[in-house]
């Protein structure tokens, strides 16, 4: 077996998608041990305590926000949107990597995705949850947010179907629903494994319920595969559509700096860019902490770096095009907008953005850097920050100096802008901690398909079935072993 793997390596010089020496059993055991272990690792408790404080900060901020009003933030006239929508777009963008990995890479049969897809999907889900908080709470009267939904009512009032915010409601809610379904569906076989391996009644009951009666029946598998593929197909356009629609929030507006046709592709690329950066930011420490370098290998890291490099270049192209269009349009407002971005009072933000999103990621061209986890981690952090800055540049810097010079005004965040933002990071990480501890973060059954044992040899199968093979009439290995 080991010889086979080495033979493979001779053919393919890339690092493996799974470390050597694993079989069905060891793989299952390693993954479920993290979930089914007794008690908690000290490191986990420590980390969780910190991020949960962050989550509490978020809950407090929300309570105060609903009580007092959005005036606790720094938003003003003309800057009606600031941290709220920046954070919304930032979180939504981060979510995109998960969907891309699980759906598009599945359809493209990129088997290396198998170890990171669950992780990325969970990230998507939590990121969307954080993202959703902002548009829901940024309104002046959040208790009437439901008016944005087209529900039949006695007033005969419908939302304004021309408003991109209305489209947002559909885009984001669809996205959240499909992501949740996709994620949960992928988990069902693994929940069944956990149920079967459970060490006590509580675990067995909970995971049993979550497994929804999964028995590993061939018909289950058949239907599961079709449904999963369908959901993947459904998710694929969402990768493109959600951020396209988010970009419409700006592109449909008439503000210079918003009103640009390049926004949809530029936003989608940016979202994937940000998403992969966040996956790396999370994966690098996690694989170290849980010793799962076998499953999330350098191959994954490298591939993700390459995706980042590619999308980063698209984003960079977007920046260049914005400059070009401002100049080429000859439009005084557009030209001034660009000038203000670069040389205006917030100019340093623009230069920081270029540093984070365009300059630093170019390190990834160098193979040595792609293999250096520290460098990759740092670059990912730069991109995380850079993508946030990008939204700041687009949203705040377009609004604060628009058509009417007499209304120009600076925007300054308040403490509550920060507690809300860092609170969502705390909340997000809290969810991630719970996810890692209670849910298999690596899809067990999908990983198994990467093992040589799972490679089906038609002849062998025939022999086995007919009982003529060297093993005699041994039954087929069962899932869950």
């Amino acid at each position: 077996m080991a010889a086979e793997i080495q033979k493979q390596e001779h053919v393919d010089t890339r690092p493996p998608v799974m470390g050597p020496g694993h079989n069905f059993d060891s793989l299952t055991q390693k993954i479920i041990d993290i979930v089914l272990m007794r008690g908690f690792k000290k490191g986990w408790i420590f980390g969780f305590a910190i991020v949960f404080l962050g989550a509490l900060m978020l809950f407090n901020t929300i309570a105060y926000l609903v009580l007092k009003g959005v005036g606790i933030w720094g938003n003003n006239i003309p800057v009606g949107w600031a941290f709220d929508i920046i954070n919304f777009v930032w979180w939504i963008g981060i979510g995109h990597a998960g969907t891309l990995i699980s759906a598009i890479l599945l359809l493209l049969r990129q088997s290396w995705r198998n170890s990171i897809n669950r992780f990325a999907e969970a990230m998507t889900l939590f990121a969307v949850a954080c993202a959703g908080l902002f548009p829901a709470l940024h309104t002046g009267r959040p208790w009437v947010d439901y008016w944005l939904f087209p529900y039949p009512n006695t007033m005969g009032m419908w939302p304004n179907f021309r408003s991109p915010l209305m489209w947002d409601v559909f885009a984001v809610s669809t996205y959240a629903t499909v992501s949740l379904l996709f994620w949960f569906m992928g988990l069902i076989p693994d929940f069944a494994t956990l149920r079967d391996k459970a060490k006590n009644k509580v675990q067995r009951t909970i995971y049993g319920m979550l497994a929804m009666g999964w028995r590993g029946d061939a018909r289950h598998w058949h239907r599961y595969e079709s449904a999963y593929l369908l959901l993947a197909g459904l998710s694929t356009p969402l990768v493109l559509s959600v951020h396209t629609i988010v970009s419409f929030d700006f592109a449909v507006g008439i503000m210079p700096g918003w009103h640009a046709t390049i926004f949809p592709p530029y936003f989608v690329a940016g979202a994937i860019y940000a998403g992969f950066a966040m996956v790396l930011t999370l994966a690098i420490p996690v694989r170290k902490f849980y010793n799962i370098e076998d499953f999330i290998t350098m191959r994954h890291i490298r591939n993700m770096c390459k995706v980042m490099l590619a999308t980063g270049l698209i984003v960079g192209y977007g920046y260049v095009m914005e400059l070009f269009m401002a100049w080429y349009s000859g439009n005084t407002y557009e030209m001034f907008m660009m000038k203000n971005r670069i040389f205006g009072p917030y100019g340093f933000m623009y230069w920081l953005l270029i540093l984070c999103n365009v300059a630093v990621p170019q390190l990834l061209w160098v193979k040595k850097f792609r293999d250096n986890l520290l460098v990759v981690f740092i670059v990912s952090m730069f991109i995380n920050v850079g993508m946030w800055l990008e939204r700041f540049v687009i949203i705040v810097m377009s609004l604060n100096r628009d058509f009417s010079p007499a209304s120009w005004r600076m925007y300054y965040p308040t403490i509550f802008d920060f507690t809300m933002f860092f609170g969502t990071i705390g909340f997000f990480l809290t969810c991630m901690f719970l996810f890692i501890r209670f849910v298999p973060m690596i899809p067990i059954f999908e990983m198994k398909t990467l093992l040589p044992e799972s490679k089906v040899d038609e002849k062998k199968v025939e022999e086995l079935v007919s009982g003529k093979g060297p093993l005699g009439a041994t039954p087929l290995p069962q899932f869950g072993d």
Partner: protein
Amino acid sequence: MSNRDKNNEISPIREQISQQIKNNVSGKKGREFWRSLEELSDTEKFRDYLHREFPALNAPETDPGMLDAGGRRNFLKLMSASLAFAGLTACTRQPDELIVPYVSTPDGIVPGKPQFYATSILQGGVASGLLVESHQGRPTKIEGNPEHPGSLGGTDLFSQASVLQLYDPDRSQAVLYLGDPRTWGDFLGEFRSAVDGQRTRQGSGLRILTENTTSPSLADQLKQIQAEFPQAKWHTYEPDSRDGARMGVQMAYGEPLNVVYQFDKADVVFSLDANFMAEGPGSVRYARDFIGKRKLTGGSSEMNRLYCAESTLTVTGAKADHRLPLKAGQIESLAREVAGQLGVSAGAPGTLSAEAKKFAAAVAKDLKAAGGKSIVIAGEHQPESVHAIAHAINSALGNAGSTVVYTDPIESNPVNQWASISELIADMNAERVDLLLIIGANPVYNAPPVKDARSGREVTFLDAMKKVATRVHMGLYNDETAAQCQWHIPQTHYLEAWDDARAYDGTVSIIQPLIMPLYNGKSAHELLAAVVNQAGKTSYDILRDYWKTQMGAEFDQKWKQSLHDGLVAGTALPARPVQLKADWAASLGPVRQGRSEIVFRIDPTVHDGRFANNSWLQETPKPINKITWDNFAIISPKTAADMGLAGNEEPYHATAKMIRLINAGKTLSMPAWVQPGQPDDTVTVYLGYGRDRAGSVGSKLGFNTYSLRTAGTPWIATDNVKFEVGEGTYVLASTQEHFNIDASGIDTDAFIPAENDLTARHIVRTASLEEYRKDPKSVHHGAHTPGKEMTIYPGWDYTGYAWGMTIDMNACFGCNACVVACQSENNIAVVGKEMVIRGRIMHWLRIDTYFKGGTVNPEVYFQPMMCQHCENAPCEVVCPVNATVHDAEGLNVQVYNRCVGTRYCSNNCPYKVRRFNYLIYGDWDSPSLKNLRNPEVTVRTRGVMEKCTFCVQRIMSAKIEAEKQDRKVQDGEVMTACQTACPTDAIIFGDINDPKSRVVELKKEPRNYEVLADLNTRPRSSYLASIRNTNAELAGKNGQGNNHQG
């Protein structure tokens, strides 16, 4: 709650309390009026019910004045109730004035329809005619009285805001003795003995201090007092004393005279530091007359020309065709220079710059050419010599008697007020005063110190006043002076009491109240009556008695007519022929030289401090610099640079550096505001801030600049004046970042040359008169408006009314009256300094100020900006819940109930005229302020967007009226609040589907343009470009200097 519910709920209470009534009624002593038996019985349950039903009447029980807060209508109810139940107790007093209960409805009163009453506001004692809107007895909105010569329908911001002062919960509400509440009766008892003590001494220890007054009846009362107490003295003082003007005319003509300027007859106006459009008596009228000569509408291409030499950039200077920044101390030199060139010998001028000399030469030439159709006017804070020279020039030019008319003084006591207050202080300090009566004034805060003749030390009013045995203060507020007097009497507001006064031209107005005194106030008349043993007499009686003697026959008829009209017909003082004194120039001293100087000016929004507790005025951005809630030291860019004050750190907040002002040993650290157009080496400070006891709004705001004044220098301090860089910084709440229209503050030529950043937007369009005459369309050069046919979508047909507006930028002089009027009409909330700094001011209407041409002497343009009601409104498309929609008449309407508060509409508004309630900004709690609100406009709560509605409530009531009569709304029937307030008729509103309407006529003017029209928003509001009548000899002078502001 429906009526039925109300009745159901009330009946069990009735039964339950019937016993209690019997118990309570017999012992009831405290209350004079009650509203019902239930109230009289005062059960807990009834009180709950009452407060639920009439939250506006939810007055604190501890507050005796609040009982009357319900206003006229409730007062009438109380009256009828008390009459009906008079038999229940014997202690119900009735006022003696005739009151008509609603039982038999007076003619014309329809519940829900406002009534308008003519009255007048006093400013510096001078009347300005008003029509006050009253909703069932509650005055809510001030309008100008079109028949009154001082108004002609326009108002200023102080009149507009005075209605808030009426309801101010911080107003003094009880007679106080050493801070403890007393009754009026208690006071009268004590006062009587104090007055009787004076009687034996012929009143030698009695002093009465009033503010400036023109009231004939008050003067009559004071005359009576003087007859009874020949040794008593009447002093007059208020900070805006106008001594220079008063003494200047005396210097020129040898007698006190009132000067009336007729700007409607003047082709050339030369202002010597006079802000005549915004300060002083008649300013509202002067603004209208002056602007009326430069409207350029209806094919006219004639304009008057204004030359303005100024020590501080004011709204008048901003409208000047040629403006010369000049030190206040050098104004006299300029006046002498001009006088010399016109052959008036006014002494040798001091050294003047070449620029000033050229300016003087051009002015002199133009004045001469105008041939008696010109005006030379000196600023109120300029010394008497400048005024005298101005009079001499007017006399020489033949203006006296034609454009400058002299009448008998309108003031009852035309004295040098600075001298008058100084004499009072000296008398008090010498312990010659035993009984001091201060009426309306706040001298502890605002009187100048006096140099003691013996010790040579400066004596403040407070030091001296403490030596007076009995001190009585009457005022609207329990202020700095009240705190230092044993007795304090709450004074009535002008909307609460009968009074009379003269307008700037002498026309008498009877001031009638619109509401019973809210806070147990007494009027000055009633207090003075107590001095001469007529304590019971009401101001109504005093006034009628006085005017009976004046009006003679047919008194009742004349009285009624005067009340109705708001003025007594034919009382304007006749012009008097005057002759310049031959030796007028003899008393001209040597001219001051241009040293460092501090100029004190009356604040453009809180006046001398009397409006400090008026949050509308505090939050009104001061013209030019747009700062709210503070005062500051205005300094020129060059002086700031020389001193090492780097300037306002814009756009990063309006953080100002501190500057230390030193005037003869007195120092004051203030934030320095670097303002283009300020003469170098001159610091201007506004009076009226730094108050200790203004009230919950106005105390501890800004810096007390009165403390910087010395005994000898009322307005312009030049001796021992020094400026030093102070410690630290100070954040000023400015509502607008300051840019030259031709420079955005980004000093790079990348993409577009820096000077084109803003000019290419064509937001402000201007031309000189010459250019305009050559090509009236030249103002639009380079601007682009997409044609209406350039769309594939069919347009909307507005078949009924189509509301639109024009704003004449040539007429707007940035006075802010419209801003406050809008606030008053539309219940707009005040947000406070912190929120202004955050950028959340709620004003629906703002006056954008743009500078053009350098920092030394920029041109200033005002552009009132409110919702433009775009036909292609960008805000409407993006609202997710249809909370902002278009109506069939072209109004862009905001549905507060539906608004969720996403703020997307505001983000997408190119004019940024939408305002968001980030927090609860409205005052929902103060009971008295509930009566202030316009009942036809929703009070907005937190989380909803709001903006200008074109006063949709006024449109609706006009439409209802028209529909009742089966006709269309006539042109001029709907006037927006900003339009009615505007003293210069700059804002015209109407139906653009009516080809004969004024708005359509104006939209046909060649100067007409729409702001940001290139966005194809198709605004319903349009602007008429600003034209300046520049003098070719001076052309190019304006706007010199470096090209961007620091």
